[in-house]
């Protein structure tokens, strides 16, 4: 029975530790990670895929409209067996709802119509009612919202991306406490891996853009080179 509560000791011990920032490359590549995940029990693998289908951007069905996605997410959230995972997934979706609200308002969209499925979680109605307030009345629950709004309005997309990843990373850390070798630990590891992967890709893209800008500044335009020749 005791071994049953820690079914993934070997799997978790076989995974390298991950940090969010400062790593140029992920310590484990997707192919190897997929190979390791074959150690999961079939029921746990199914649940993992279900959770990924609402949280992982590359698994979310982009053909769904908002209402269909919200309905599917709520159905999957209700089916998650672990209270810890259900709460963690819900909090992540709530963070996304809040960021989506900030972006929609920044894009000039009006207050969502009451009753429409535009977000997920316990704060959807509060956000809708406080649409015109800078922090949607959510500063107590989400103290980082003022910083996110400033970064969005100033066009600091890299800073906003980093803030979102950092907030999500810390939220996962809060829920993860006490889960070291169980199914929850595996799911949290994959969540962290995805966040680190997203940052690594974002960092690489941002570096490429910055490099191109530096080249433009450092090198004279092609026309002036021809003139000099």
């Amino acid at each position: 029975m005791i071994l049953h509560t820690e079914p993934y000791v070997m799997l978790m011990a076989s995974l390298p530790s991950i940090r969010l920032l400062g790593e140029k490359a992920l310590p484990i590549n997707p192919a190897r990670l997929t190979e390791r995940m074959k150690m999961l029990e079939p029921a746990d693998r199914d649940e993992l895929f279900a959770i990924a289908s609402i949280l992982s951007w590359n698994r979310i069905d982009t053909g769904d409209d908002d209402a269909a996605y919200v309905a599917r997410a709520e159905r999957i959230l209700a089916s998650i067996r672990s209270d810890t995972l259900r709460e963690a997934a819900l909090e992540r979706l709530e963070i996304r709802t809040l960021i989506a609200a900030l972006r929609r308002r920044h894009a000039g969209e009006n207050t969502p119509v009451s009753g429409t499925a535009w977000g997920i979680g316990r704060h959807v109605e509060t956000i809708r009612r406080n649409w015109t307030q800078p922090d949607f009345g959510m500063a107590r629950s989400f103290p980082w919202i003022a910083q996110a709004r400033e970064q969005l309005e100033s066009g600091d997309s890299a800073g906003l991306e980093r803030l979102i990843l950092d907030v999500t990373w810390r939220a996962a850390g809060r829920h993860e406490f006490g889960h070291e070798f169980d199914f929850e630990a595996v799911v949290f590891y994959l969540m962290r891996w995805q966040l680190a992967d997203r940052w690594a890709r974002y960092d690489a893209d941002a570096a490429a853009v910055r490099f191109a800008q530096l080249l433009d500044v450092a090198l004279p335009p092609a026309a002036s080179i021809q003139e000099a020749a």
Partner: protein
Amino acid sequence: MNELMVILGWLGVFAPVGLGAIGSAIGVTIAGQAAIGAMLETDSGYGRFVGVAAIPSSTVIYGIVVMFSLQRTITPENGAGLFGIGILTGLALAYTSVWQGKACASAIAASKSKPEIFGLSLAPAAIVEGFAVFTFVFALVLAGNIKG
């Protein structure tokens, strides 16, 4: 009633070994799984991991020693004392062994990526071992006071 006390006495005499062995088996299995997992990710230090995985086996050895200290002619008069000391010693050894296995598994998982913390990461497992030693020593002390 007398027969029951003798039966309880026998249970108490063997409990430290039986329960200690159960705890050690579980603890070593947990830590051993972590050692195997760590081997998948590292290129060296395998012996170190296996060595750490064996740490929870110490409790069954304590159990064997306590059993010998409790072993004597079992009578209705000493049955209750043997049962009390033996069962509680066995439970404590089993419990410490299981949790020590988890502490060892955590140490292995952490030190595979950061070898410099290997020694320090074993501190929790060493402290848990201390609790098993307390149980062992005081079981021996009390066993000397049981007549028989």
